[in-house]
Structures are given as C-alpha cells and as structure tokens.
C-alpha cells in the first residue's frame, strides 16, 4: 500500500440508525427455551426411537411429496416456536435412523453417547481450529489424539491433521508426495514436472481418481494394479506396472494401498508393497479410512502388518469406531514439517509471527482449508470413556458378529457369498430367490439375479424395516454388502436381517 500517514482519515456522518444500538437485538432467554424443548425431541425421536429395533429405520417418501411435507420455502417473516418444534420433529421423523440396529447401509452406524456429547459440545463452542488463540484446548487435544493414533500405526513421531473426510486425506497424501519429490510444483505448477504416475488397485476408493483429476494429474495417471481373488493388490504386478510406467516415460510417484476396501473389505499386503516402494523409492500411502480400526485389536492388527513402513495413512474413526461424522485423521511419518511447508500461505491476519505464545501451535496453515472444524473432541472423549481396551473390544466383537452372520448364511438356502473368506466386517452376497435356484446355467440367469437386489432394497425402504446397500462390481451383477460393526447389534438383529431378505425376496 502507498506510504500514506497512518492517521489520514476524513470524517463521515452519523446515521439515524445508530440510536437503536443501545440495546441488544437478540434475547437469549427465548433461544435457550427452544434449545431445551428441541433437546427433548432429539432424545425422544432420534436417540430413543432411532435406536429401537421395534421402530422403523426409515419413513420413505418420494422427493416431491417430502418436499411438500417439509414446507421448505424460506420467507420474509419468522415462525413461532411451536411451528419450529414441529419442524424439528419432521426432520427427525423423515431422516434415516443411522443408529438403528437394522441400518447396515453404510460404513457408519450406531451411536456412542460419549462421542455424541463431544459433538454437542463442539457445536456449542463453535470455534475454528486454526490458532491456539481461538482454540487452545482443541489444538492440544488434536495433537494428543494424532499422537495416539500414530502410536497405533507404529510411529513414535510424526505429524498429521484432521480432514473433512477420508477423500480429502487421500488427496493430502498425493499433494505431499508430489511436493516432497518436486517442491517447485507449489509455485510453478505441474508444467515444471515430468508426467507422474499413481498406483492403486481397482478396489481402492474412488477418491484416488477424484484426487488425481482435482490435483491436475488427470485420471489417466492412475494406474490400476491387479488384485487376487480376495481383492488384494498383487505386489508382483505392482512392480511390473511400475517398470512399465517408467518405460513409458512416467515418473512413478505414489502407491495408494487400501486397508479395508469399500466393497469387499480387503487388505492389501502392506509389507510386500512396502518392499516394492522401497525398491522404486515411491511414497507409500495407506488408505485405512475403513480398516484402520483393526490397529486397536491385538488379534486382528496383523491385517495391516507393515503399515509402519508407510509414509502416510488415512484413518476415519467415524466409521467403525462410531466417533460421529466427520472424524478423519491424516497421519504422517514425516518430522520435517513437510505438511506445513507444502500447504502454508502465511496469512498475516491469522498467523502473526509476533504473538506472545509459541506460534508453532497455530497449526491452521498445515491445512488447505481456512476454517476447519474441531473433529478431535468427539473421538478423544469417547476414547477417554472406554479406553483403548474398550475400543479393542468393539473391533473384536464386530469380527465375531461377522463370523456368526456367515455361519447363519451357510445354514440357509439362497445366500451365496461373493468372496468366500471375508477378511473384514464386510459381507458381500447374492440372495438367490427360490425361482432362480438351480438355474445357474440359464442364459438370462445373471441378468435376472442382478435385478433382485434393487427390488429387495426398494421393498425394505418402503416398509422401513431395514437398510442395506447393494452394488455391481466389475462384471459381477448387483449383490448386497452388509457391514456389521455397531456395538448395538446382537445375534437377533442378524437373524432378523436374514429373515427379512428372505421375506422380501422369496417371491421374485
């Protein structure tokens, strides 16, 4: 700016509106009353009914009719508290009960009350995690939680940050790998770089593709490595694909391994992949958004053997651990401040260097976001309440549940597993209605089978009895994927699940 005197400013005129400024415009007493009433509804409708196996999982309405019911339009004038409380009830009624014991639709579900208290508290405190100045408690807490998660990975030191979802974490990994190899990319862009290649498996999460296009690599730079029949990346093929890419003029950058693929729940063999990464000097990233929680379990952490050799790990405690959306940790082995160097912009209005405390605590410049939500409190509070041992029990119990479910499926007709030996808590299966049994040889068998799951899904949602996801995969037709991990479910719920599939699908 021009070197004008700091004191040069001319006068203005006082406005009549100013006389209204002597009183507050807002009365918190009324707001607090509403808060109390709304809280009662949340407890009754969302928490009590929403977790009651006797109640419905969802109250299906077509979009057009739901839009009418909700009276969505925003108007000039405000509404009475009574009407607003009715709206709260409507939201509760027509929302999916993701904590219901018969909700098997996504990789989140169930409710943890300590975590929920942490979430309510986070919302009430309404702050931003960029400086120690405005979030002293949470800056320290995030550091502690990240440290504890890193210890489970097997790192004594390192760095990390909570991101708005695992996709963002995976993109951070790509960005860091690129910056580490070619720091000039930050200022000059990809034009200064050779063509880079990223390796992943077909079962990996789609955020690898999204990241590649978002970060300017292009999806063509993602090279898919073959998997074995359990959906695990084949290290030998990775090695071959890297060689091939090199011969085509690519510079191999990063391998994105998956611990717990979305559909099959497969774990890539990290130790063998790490050998290949060492050999070719590639950044090894582990997308453990879904599977990371096995690290709590002495019995099952072998699934991620070798994870300590990774450069970075994504891990979403909002999935299997029930921390509540969103809770996504991005963990780094690096101790050279790579994250900050890669992402910083040194905003002078936020990250002043002449503050009266250690400005290294102003962690916000490690992020590509500016305002960033506090996602650590919910996990920290839950972890404090149940301890690592309690979390370990949850993980172990989920595996036991899956074993039970598999046993029951074997006892029944019509349930055919996609992968006969599920590694994790995903169970993928076709339900074969009586009319199709024994007709595997028919030409239209696959087409007919692929139509079964969507119809059963429609029926279950319209009746509101349960929710489970389905999808095709490669050349496999639609099959169900049930994920079993909520600590609220018991054998009875799994029996119900199987009965219900049979009931809804038997006449197809």
């Amino acid at each position, binding site marked *: 700016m021009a070197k004008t*005197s*700091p004191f040069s400013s001319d006068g203005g005129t006082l406005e009549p*509106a*100013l006389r209204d*400024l002597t009183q507050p415009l807002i009365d918190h007493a009324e707001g607090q009353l*509403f*808060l*109390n009433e*709304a809280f009662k509804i949340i407890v009754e409708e*969302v*928490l009590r009914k929403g977790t009651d196996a006797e109640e419905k999982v969802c109250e299906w309405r077509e*979009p057009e009719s*739901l839009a009418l019911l909700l009276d*969505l339009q*925003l108007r000039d004038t*405000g509404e009475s508290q009574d009407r607003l409380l009715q709206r709260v009830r409507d*939201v509760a009624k027509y929302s*999916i009960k*993701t904590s219901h014991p018969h909700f098997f*639709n996504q990789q989140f579900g169930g409710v943890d009350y*300590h975590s*929920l208290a942490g979430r*309510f*508290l986070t919302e*009430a*405190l*309404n702050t931003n995690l960029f400086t*120690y*100045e405005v979030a*002293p*408690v949470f800056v*320290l*807490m995030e550091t502690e939680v990240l440290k504890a998660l890193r210890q489970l990975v097997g790192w004594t030191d390192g760095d990390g940050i909570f991101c*708005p*979802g695992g996709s963002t974490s995976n*993109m951070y990994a790509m960005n860091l790998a690129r910056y580490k190899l070619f720091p000039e*990319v*930050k*200022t000059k*862009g990809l*034009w200064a770089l050779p*063509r880079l290649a990223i390796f992943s498996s077909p079962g990996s999460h789609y*955020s690898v593709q*999204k990241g590649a296009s978002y970060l300017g690599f*292009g*999806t063509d730079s993602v090279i898919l490595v073959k998997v074995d029949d359990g959906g695990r990346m084949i290290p030998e093929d990775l090695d071959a694909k890297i060689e091939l890419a090199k011969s085509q003029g690519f510079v191999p950058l990063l391998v994105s391994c998956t611990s717990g693929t*979305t559909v099959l729940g497969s774990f890539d063999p990290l130790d063998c992949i790490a050998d290949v990464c060492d050999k070719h000097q590639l950044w090894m990233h582990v997308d453990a958004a879904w599977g990371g929680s096995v690290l709590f379990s002495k019995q099952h952490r072998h699934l991620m053997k070798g994870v300590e050799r990774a450069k970075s790990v994504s891990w979403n405690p909002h999935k299997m651990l029930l921390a509540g959306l969103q809770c996504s940790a991005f963990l780094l082995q690096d101790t050279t401040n790579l994250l900050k160097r890669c992402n910083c912009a040194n*905003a002078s209005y936020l990250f002043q260097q002449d503050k009266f405390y*250690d400005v290294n605590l102003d962690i916000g410049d490690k992020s590509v976001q*500016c*305002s960033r939500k506090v996602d650590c409190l919910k996990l920290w509070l839950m972890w*404090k*309440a*149940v*301890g690592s*041992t309690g979390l370990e029990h949850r993980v172990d119990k989920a595996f036991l549940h899956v074993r039970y479910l598999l046993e029951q499926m074997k006892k029944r007709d019509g349930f055919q597993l996609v992968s006969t030996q599920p590694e994790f808590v995903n169970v993928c299966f076709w339900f074969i209605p009586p009319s199709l049994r024994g007709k595997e040889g028919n030409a239209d068998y696959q087409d007919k089978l692929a139509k079964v799951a969507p119809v059963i899904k429609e029926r279950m949602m319209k009746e509101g009895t349960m929710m489970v996801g389905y999808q*095709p995969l490669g050349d496999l037709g639609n099959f169900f994927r049930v994920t079993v991990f909520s600590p*609220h479910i*018991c*054998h009875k719920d799994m029996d119900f699940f199987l009965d219900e599939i049979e009931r809804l699908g038997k006449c197809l």
Partner: protein
Amino acid sequence: MTDKQVTGQGPEAGFRHLSKCCPAVRDGPALKEPPVEMSAAERFIHEAMEVIIDEAVKKATDVQEKVCEWQSPEKLRELLDLELKDGGESDSKILQHCKNAIRYSVKTSHPRFFNQLFAGLEPYSMVASFITEAVKTSLYTYEVAPVFTLMEDAVLKKMMELIGWDEGGDGIFNPGGSMSNMYAVNLARYRFCPDIKEVGLYNAPRLVMFTSQEGHYSISKAAALLGLGTKNVYAVPSDDRGKMIPSALEEKIELARSEGAVPFFVNATAGTTVFGAFDPVDEIADICERHSLWLHVDACWGGAALVSNQHKHLLKGIHRADSVAWNPHKMLMACLQCSAFLIKDKTSLLQRCHSAKASYLFQQDKFYDVSYDTGDKSVQCSRKPDAFKFWLMWKALGSSELERRVDRALAMARYLAQTFKKREGFHLLMEPEYSNVCFWYVPPALRGLPDGPELWRKLHTVAPVIKERMMKTGSMMIGYQTHGDKPNFFRMVVINPQVSKQDLDFVLDEIHSLGKDLR
C-alpha cells in the same frame, strides 16, 4: 462383571453405575442380547447437555464472565489430562473433562469476542447442529439423507435468488470457503478444457488466474493444490481502499497473454478479510466478458449484504458472476461450518467435473430419481449436511430479521468509526465500507511523536502487547495484523446482535487502560 476390566479403576466407585450407559463398556461376552440400556445412556446425555447449556451457552454469552481463560500451552496440557489410556474413565470424570474443555476454550459467542469473522450464538442454528449430530448422516444420496438433500437444494435456490440468478443454477455446501474457492478454480479449468480431468495439465498451456492483492489466501492455496502453481496467480493491485483496480486487471491479463500464458479465471472479492473492501464486480465482469474468463466472486464474508436492501449495492453486478462463494457461518451466524458454493451453470458442470460414478454409492438402477443423489458433485465422499443449520434459523427468523442483523452490524461499524474520531489516541485506517473497522491505538507517550519511521516502529509493538494483556485478563478478544508496510493495527468486526453500544464503549476504555503505559 466385565465392565470393570474395561472401565479401569477410577476413584469414583459411586458413579460406576453411570458408566453402564456407554455401549462399549457393556459389550461384555454376550453377543446374543442387545447391549443397549437406553435409560442410562440417556441419563448421561442429559447430564452432558445440562453442562453444555449452563457453561457453554449461558455462561459463555454472559457479559459478566470472561471471554477466555488463558493458560500457557504447557500448563493447559496438564490441566486437561489429555493422555489416552487403555482403561476407560467414569462418566463423572468424562463430565469433568467436558467442563474443563469449556472452561479453557475461547467463548466465541461472548459479546466481547471480536477476534474473527464469526461471532455470537444463534440458538436456532445451534439446535440444527445438534440435530445434525444426533441424526448423523452423510449428504451424498437421497437414500440416506432425504430431508437434508431437499433442504440443501431449497437453501441454495434461495441464495441464488438473492444473487439475482433468475434462471437458477447449481451449487453445493462445502467444508469452508477455501474449498468453495478451489471448486471455482477447478470448474473454470474444466470448462476451459474438459480433457484436463483425464489427461492432466501436462499438455495444457500455462494457465493463469487473477485475484487482487487483498484477496483471500485460499486462491493461492488452490493454485498449489490443483497443480497450477502459486506463481500463476497474478496479484492485481488494489486502490487505497482495498478494491481491485479494473484497469490494472486488464493490464495483468495482457501481460499474461504477452508471456504466452492463457488467462482463464478471475477472482473478485466481495468483502476482503482485513478491510472489508468490495471489488467493483460490474466493471470486472465487463473485462471477464471481453476476455471470456470465468468470473468467481469470493463473497464468503460480504455475501451477507445481499440480504439487505440498504447494502446489497455493495455487490452490484454479482449476478454476472459464473460462481459465488458465500459463508452464512460468518455474518449471518449459522454455526460453523456453513459455506455455500453457487454456480450459474445449468449444464451439470459441477457433476461432470467432479464425478467418479462410484458404483457402490450412486447405483443407476435405484427405485427413485437418482438426480437427487447429489454426492458426486463433490470432491468429498462423506459430507456434512451444513445447509440445515442455515435453513432452520432462516425459518425461525425470516429474511427480514436477517436483514436487520446485517444492517445493525454495518451501523455498529459506523458508530465505532464515529467514536474513534472523537476519542484521543484512536485512529482509523479508513472509513469502513462494510463492518470491518481497522484502527490504531496510540498510547499517550507516543502521541507527541512526529509521523515517521520511529513512530511506526513503536506503534508496531503496541497491538501485540495489548492483545496479550486482553487475553491474559480475559476481558475481550480483538484481532490485529500488519498490512503492507503499515504497522500492526486492530481489526474490529461487530457481528453479534447481542452487542450494544455500551460494549463498544467498554472496548475502547479497555484498550486504553491496557495500553496507556506503553511507550
């Protein structure tokens, strides 16, 4: 009972029964029975809510209480007992952790918190936040988020109406305005050359974007993350009020062209972070049209003026933008985060640019209209239903009350500016255009010094010391910064409708009393 092994041995044996409410604690060996004991769980959540209402809502908004309870990081680490252990802790301990977290957190809803571009407590939005947390869903399909999908659509439509896009458009809520600005860059790039999605930037010409020197740093972060490079962000000079100079933009565009680079994107800022300046959108739009460039308006901060008939002229021409970022979590006081990204396009550009067509989420053979599955428009996978926080408060207050709040925030800024002129030792940097009031406090010992390097050097150290003192007393919080070669100055922003004139008078008195001995 197996509970004990899991919960560890705390001294609060009397409260042990409460720990039953945690499902994991009660997991036990029996897998056959449902482990849920809702009455105990409810008891805990009720107790937690009582603590939250008393300490994080009532006390936090009480002007008699402190804004912050400063502790050094070392001391605070001890006080919080952060370590995570194998055993669990009793519920009474967990509630104590909640109380500690509240006590040592900054009360951003306190009437003396002026530190950021968010402030105050909006109970209706907070209720919506609580519902969001309890309902716990992700906004990617109509299947799992029917209500919030429709609400997001309704809120976006209304915001587009205020922008002046009569034909509608498209949009999405993002985790923060920086993300929205990055979306704009990515969409502009994709429209310019759709192949980039597959083949990357390698064969593309060097792409250049423009923003004013006052623009938010997220434009630079976007350039770095998206592989465009920060050097390809050309900073356009602003005038002495912080507004982009359109002729300078034109010159920079010509400069880029003469270098063989290809301009594709202009970011205009409506409400800059420090000065609250509004770039002349209409004139910038003329230039963008002439050069066929994507015009994005970063109205994260200034967008709120669109709800005010008196002040919306500040954003004149915004309807000509290709995209707009607007954060209702700032002046309109929706709970964090609530950031809308809006685009004028009606050809599914957002979806085409970002989609990956995950077969496990976006099945095309669903039994309802899959155009309601909006998740593939995002680069995220799980996404929070942030629009609801704005929808419920808007329903409660109506547009007219939102307008009153914005008008009041701007009136407060004018009042503050007037007061500075009357008080000795307070100097405005410039008349506020919006609600940012930037000023120096000059302690008595410096008032006689002639304008020059010595005064500036000494003045530079004043704001940091006053800031330290206000935080250590806990009386209030105001941000400070340098700007160009200007010495440290304070930036006051009055958003909170709970704040009245008396609070502002208090602020000035307090600054003087904290800083009068400085020399």
